[in-house]
């Protein structure tokens, strides 16, 4: 058994449990802050201090295994402002970024936001966002699961996760329609595949099997 401080309460728990499992094991009926239990969704962020350590660390509760002397709380949500917009109605959303997130300009690059449990270089993408390096920002936030831990550290109340998502969406919208998709949609508009499907509907099981195998052989 290990002794840890869990949600402000000193308690013994078995070895090998994650923070979430330790909470359940000690009778905390936690539902809020539980998600995929695979380290992918960002629902279960925790803040913890390891025995003898000075600096608070952050992580995912479903993937952080408790250790002797750990002091840990769940931090599943942090309030941050998100802009409201209708992206489909905007012609060049990137030009409207500053209007939706004016606080971005106040960043003084203190790098306090670099606590990402996914090891994203948050300060790095906030910087490229400010400087107009939007494609590079979009690339960097692909692994962001929007847990919002970074926003909890920002002295200027910037919410990097929302800024990143805005840029990611804007960049995707600005790309031209992929030629292969455009071509397929053109083909589908004129091709009479529907008549072929009408025949399919009339097939019995054996004929259907033969039909499918024939398509794949062609």
């Amino acid at each position, binding site marked *: 058994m290990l002794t840890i401080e869990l949600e402000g309460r000193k308690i013994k728990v*078995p*070895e*090998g*449990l*994650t923070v979430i*499992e330790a909470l*359940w*094991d000690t009778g905390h009926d936690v*539902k*809020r802050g*539980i*998600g*995929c*239990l*695979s*380290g*992918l*969704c960002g629902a279960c962020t925790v803040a913890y201090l390891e025995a003898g350590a000075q600096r608070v660390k952050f*992580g995912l509760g*479903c*993937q952080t*295994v408790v250790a002797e002397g750990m002091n840990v709380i769940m931090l599943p949500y942090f309030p941050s402002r998100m802009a*409201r*917009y209708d*992206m*489909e109605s905007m012609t060049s959303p990137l030009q409207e970024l500053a209007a939706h997130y004016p606080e971005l300009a106040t960043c003084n690059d203190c790098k306090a936001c670099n606590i990402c449990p*996914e090891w994203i270089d948050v300060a790095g993408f906030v910087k490229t966002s400010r400087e107009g390096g939007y494609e590079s920002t*979009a690339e960097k936030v*692909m*692994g962001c699961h*929007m847990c919002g831990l970074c926003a909890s550290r920002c002295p200027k109340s910037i919410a990097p996760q929302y800024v990143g*998502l805005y840029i*990611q*969406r*804007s*960049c*995707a*919208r600005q*790309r*031209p*329609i*992929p030629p*292969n*998709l455009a*071509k*397929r*949609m053109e083909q*589908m508009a004129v091709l009479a*595949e529907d008549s*072929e*499907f009408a025949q*399919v*509907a009339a*097939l019995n099981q054996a004929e259907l*099997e033969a*039909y*499918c*195998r024939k*398509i*794949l052989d062609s």
Partner: protein
Amino acid sequence: MYPADLLKSLELVHSTRERRMAESLPRLEELQRNELLQTYHPDYKDAAFRNLRVGANKGDRVTHEFADLLESFSDLDHARINLQPEFTTDVLVLGGGGAGVTAALFAESLGARVLLATKLRLGNSNTIMALGGMQASVAEEDSPLRHFADTMIAGNFAGRASLVKALVEDGPHIVKWLLDIGVNFDRNILGNLATKNAGGLSAPRILSIGDHTGLNIMKVLKDEMRKSNRIELLEFTPAVELATDADGACNGAILYDLGRRRHLAVQARAVILATGGAGRLHNQGFPTSNNFGATGDAVVLAYRAGAGIEGMDSFQYHPTGVMFPDHMVGVLVTEAIRSLGAHLVNGNGERFVNELETRDLVAAAIIREVEGGRGVRTPSGKIGVWLDIPVLEELLEKGMLKKRFPSLFKQFRRVKIDITKRPLLIYPTLHYQNGGILIDEQGESTVSNLFVAGEAAGGIHGRNRAMGNSLLDIFVFGRRAGLAAVERRHAVPGPLSLNHVTRYYDRLKSLRISSVAKSPTLFPEFIVDKL
């Protein structure tokens, strides 16, 4: 970090790599395939199933886990609950994953008022966990007809042709919609959508966003949800029963507010059930890749309301679920790893199946190795086989794993396992409910005004789902259900009743079934198996 025993077994994996790279394993003949499935696949283990004694599908073969839920009573005191609606809406969407949110967005787009209620936080779902990608026939050498044929064959021809037709024909249109709202699918240098191969596909058809495809789609969908005032959201409020009118048509639901610990009734002109699958029922004791809320609620609710179900004896056990370390047991390793040529290696350092066979066959082959004593045991007694991921760096190029699988790389970096150097110990994990509530092409169940979308729906994937078809299915049928549900908005819903529940219970009692299980389950029990 691997302990000493496993490191020793790993030496064998490393020392046999060169020899294995020279090998090519033949694909199985039809007879061999049938024998492998019938001997080792969990769907064929007769003792794990029984026939339903009540309801629309009385006599059907289902898993014990589902039979237990369907032949049981609810915590809800249905005779005493206040059925006065606290909310009235045009469309009630139950479930906040990809299917539910898509349904809500399309219903809203036609001017409907929508209420979306979800058990957990909006977006917490299996959608977010979809790693590998989504099928859509956009490649030059591909076509919707090929997609149709592949899907039918993968499902062993148990899928319904009309639903599969809807799936494959909507595919390219769904891709266009997702691009329009700002989803950034990977592209090649020509600006074409990049398409990848997968087990059982006759053309490259998998679209992806790195190895976190579902996450990046769900982020955008959640953002879209915020733009309209016509969509109201209730989080941490699971549905515990559907409501019906005097004719048995669905006209609302009973929700449970987890925070306030009280029930509330919602009246709606149409209901869309999109609460996902059932991995957390842990069929036959298998680990699962599913999220915390996947407890099969949809099938329980719809079945009590009289809806027909199909294929509830068929589940997908994804071949590559993590077996070490203990706290990651069940977590998925994307099939894209196998598609690219990673080896499955048993405890003797041998490959034992062509890794590009369909998921059901590969899973059965892994179980065969473990049951035959050729598995590898972890310190806590779990047994699996090795997935040789580092071989990809030699087969393809150095550095590709970190570049193309950043999510997987990070997941294991946390536990100090470097996937570019170390194989992972894996075993099949309960991944997907192949069957579900029977729907038509518009997503409507056999109960009027009750629509179903996503994993809760059945009839599409037959007895085995091909990679990438569920991510497509949630958008195709989410959209169709959302659009069709809006058409019911002119019918005035009658008073809410739970008469269907009373009738269902009467049948249970007449059969002297007095199960102690309560359903819907809502949340899995926490069992510490490490003590």
